[in-house]
């Protein structure tokens, strides 16, 4: 017993190092498995508050660009409204499907990362605004990511520029779908994998969300096809997509809540015990 205690005292630095290294290794491994990184995230009271204060200052430098983006969006929506006045059918179908099943809130991005291979964003809306996990996040131009962690006043968004992210997407012109992933290289190019080689893919085609998950509605724009090649197996394409969104310059986003998602989940995952 004496010898064990002596051993611990003699090697206390090495043992402390091994203990702390083990803890951080465990945290790292945990953060690499989806939906488990609970402890270490920037959506808490302290870091959220600091980011909120800092972005309150830095937002002023970006006001001009953000105004231009807003005017552009208003322009598009206005032209939709005016042009729909004679043929009412098209716009009404859209607005019913939105107001019936999806609820939309606005939020501001207070921290944006795009340089590492696992990128997250922090937004200034949280549980007190009714935000929960698995809500979708979009801008006026296209999708941004999915909420994966919330605190009282802040929420963390798993960006589409994250190697863990997987989102259902499809071609705008046909219904062949695949999953949207990221290889961690360029912040403006993402990959659409598992799309059948019989799909009519052409360069310049638009890619939209597929509506096969309960998170995003169908038809939210993502980007255009930059180039594509056959997978090693030869059955599916890997399509490089150039994003509509400039992920390096985001400020105002919309959060989409699917009001039917509980019902859909209940149907898809029947009691499995």
């Amino acid at each position: 017993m004496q010898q064990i205690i002596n051993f611990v005292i003699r090697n206390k630095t090495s043992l402390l190092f091994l203990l702390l290294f083990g803890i951080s290794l465990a945290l790292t491994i945990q953060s690499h498995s989806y939906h488990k990184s609970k402890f270490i995230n920037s959506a808490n009271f302290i870091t959220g508050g600091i980011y909120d204060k800092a972005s309150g200052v830095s937002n002023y430098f970006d006001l001009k660009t953000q105004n231009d983006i807003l005017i552009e969006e208003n322009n598009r929506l206005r032209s939709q409204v005016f042009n729909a006045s004679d043929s009412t059918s098209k716009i009404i179908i859209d607005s019913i499907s939105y107001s019936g099943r999806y609820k939309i809130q606005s939020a501001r991005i207070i921290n944006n990362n795009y340089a590492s291979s696992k990128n997250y964003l922090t937004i200034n809306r949280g549980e007190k605004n009714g935000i929960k996990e698995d809500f979708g996040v979009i801008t006026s131009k296209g999708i941004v990511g999915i909420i994966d962690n919330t605190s009282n006043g802040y929420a963390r968004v798993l960006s589409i520029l994250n190697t863990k992210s997987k989102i259902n997407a499809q071609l705008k012109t046909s219904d062949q779908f695949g999953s949207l992933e990221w290889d961690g290289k360029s912040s403006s190019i993402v990959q659409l994998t598992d799309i059948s080689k019989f799909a009519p893919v052409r360069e310049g085609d638009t890619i939209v969300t597929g509506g096969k998950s309960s998170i995003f509605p169908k038809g939210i724009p993502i980007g255009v096809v930059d180039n594509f090649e056959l997978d090693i197996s030869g059955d599916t394409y890997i399509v490089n997509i150039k994003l509509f969104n400039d992920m390096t310059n985001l400020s105002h986003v919309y959060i989409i809540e699917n009001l039917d998602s509980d019902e859909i989940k209940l149907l898809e995952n029947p009691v499995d015990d």
Partner: protein
Amino acid sequence: MTSLNFNSIIRFVVLVLVQALLFNNINFLGNINPYPYILFILLFPVNNNRSLFIFMSFMLGLFVDIFSDSGGVHAASCVTIAFIRPAVLKFAFGMVYEHQNMKFNNTEFGNRLIYFSILIAIHHFIMFTMEIFNISNIILILQKTLFSSIFTIILCVLISVLFSNKQR
């Protein structure tokens, strides 16, 4: 033996905040970021309580991790360089370090550059390996390590020269 003085605590807080708010958002040429917060570990007083030093380094890494949503990668690489620091000090400074009365302000520039470079390169290599976590991307890891290390070394040298109060 109070090696954790007021000065160190101020340095700790300032470096974490500057890293989170400024240096994480530089994104030079797309995705190259410097990590000069490890100056806290590099310039920690030499005659210290080693267990406390390793623990402080862990906390430093953990705080940067919380701010940048990166799991535990900074914490792991910080404890590692804190643990191997005495060996690197002995290698870089030789006799001066053995006499135990070394101050970083009075050392030669060349020695200090070697000391910084070794620890920064090790730190960045461990960090990017754990962040990417995929050995088939070894080229990407080495490339990121190289570019970020150069950036961090330049910034660390500049900051340490700028804020050194050399007695003449």
